[in-house]
């Protein structure tokens, strides 16, 4: 990947800030103001207006119009964010008020998209863990208005079509959002989150499922410290009857994802960054114990030193001094 100059990064910053201020995207927080379509490209003459970004902007705008409408037996309450295949909504099941997440799928008639839908649903069907959402159903129909609310989109046949995956709602905020808000993770919190995350991934691996996309945005933590792993859209599968050492090798990407997430949490506290080694690689820059450094180093570069996920979890607990 080519190194990007500070100028290129600053242009991206301006572009992102412009889209953020327009209200097109939601990062989980409530966003009451309507999106501003008057994007002033003249203010950023050096920017190239990306057609893909414009498409996502318009998609998010139209998807916001159906908040408050009904999709099947569910009511759409708010927009959670935009994903790979469409917009995610929080909703409730009208029959019993159960909180759900509905992932609206765009271009659902496409074969490749349907295969991706089945991949995610199959992964959720294989798993049974308190930290992983349950697959509750499929919605394929039209958006309808409720009560006296008028929704233009619901009246248009083409735009009223709605195809979505319904999942149970996992509690908490994403680590990505917490980091953006400036939350500083203590070593105890990192130990707790890391242990829960490793245990959750170990369950996935025991059922022959690889998450494939572990990162702070896909890890939720609630106020009680319960950890949830979301977004199995890039899941892959393997034979669960393999030897434990082979299983750990298969899950190398997930192990990397866990360790990278831990590094993000470690970097949240500026006090852990050695000022005299600023700009160096993480294993030189971070002020952590030798045991923690050794564990992280082995997890990245010497995965053969772990026989199983159980050993991986126990070495993590020993390195980060977590006592259950």
């Amino acid at each position: 990947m080519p190194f990007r100059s500070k100028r290129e990064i600053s242009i991206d910053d301006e572009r992102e800030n412009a889209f953020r201020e327009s209200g097109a995207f939601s990062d989980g927080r409530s966003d009451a103001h309507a999106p501003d379509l008057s994007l002033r490209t003249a203010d950023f003459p050096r920017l190239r207006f990306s057609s893909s970004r414009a498409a996502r902007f318009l998609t998010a705008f139209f998807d916001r119009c159906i908040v408050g409408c009904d999709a099947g037996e569910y009511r759409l309450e708010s927009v959670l964010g935009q994903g790979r295949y469409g917009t995610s909504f929080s909703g409730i099941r009208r029959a019993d008020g159960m909180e759900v997440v509905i992932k609206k799928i765009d271009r659902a008639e496409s074969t490749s998209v349907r295969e991706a839908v089945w991949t995610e649903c199959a992964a959720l069907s294989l798993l049974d863990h308190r930290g992983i959402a349950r697959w509750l159903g499929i919605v394929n129909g039209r958006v309808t208005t409720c009560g006296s609310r008028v929704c233009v989109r619901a009246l248009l046949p083409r735009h009223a079509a709605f195809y979505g995956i319904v999942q149970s709602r996992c509690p908490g905020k994403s680590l990505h959002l917490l980091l953006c808000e400036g939350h500083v993770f203590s070593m105890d919190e990192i130990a707790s989150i890391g242990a829960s995350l490793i245990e959750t991934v170990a369950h996935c691996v025991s059922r022959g499922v690889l998450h494939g996309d572990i990162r702070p945005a896909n890890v939720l933590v609630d106020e009680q410290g319960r950890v949830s792993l979301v977004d199995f859209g890039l899941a892959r599968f393997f034979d669960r009857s393999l030897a434990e050492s082979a299983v750990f090798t298969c899950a190398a990407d997930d192990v990397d994802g866990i360790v990278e997430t831990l590094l993000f949490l470690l970097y949240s506290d500026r006090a852990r960054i050695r000022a005299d080694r600023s700009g160096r690689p993480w294993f030189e820059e971070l002020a952590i114990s030798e045991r923690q450094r050794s564990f992280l180093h082995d997890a990245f570069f010497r995965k053969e030193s772990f026989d199983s996920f159980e050993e991986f979890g126990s070495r993590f607990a020993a390195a980060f001094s977590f006592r259950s």
Partner: protein
Amino acid sequence: MGLFSMSGKKKKGYYGGSSSYGKPGLGGLGGMMGMFGSFSSSSRKRQMYQQQMAQQQAAIHQNPVVQQTPQAAPAAAVSAQASSGSIACPACGASVPAGSKFCLECGNKIGGGFCAGCGAALPPGAKFCPACGTPRA
């Protein structure tokens, strides 16, 4: 669901205060740390997912045990229904992958699922796994 927050803060090294953590070419994994230093640029995300897809394809060719779909993964024993790979939805007649609890077309609840013990696809209404005999959860 991956929530693509478009905050500009993380671009400025807000995640750790160290701009080098987000720079490619530095850190561990020969530069892969830099690849995950920021998630906000759409082009970077596209490149990341393209690389992931390429890696998945390469991994499949190199490691045949890792598969894209659960039906393709070898199991200890495969029932006749699971080996067929799909069943017909009783409501709309659409083809439904074996093991799916809901029809992917109409959303009708079919009640399949996978065995917690061996991972084999369970026929709708089955109380025990036909492959290993584990009671249905």
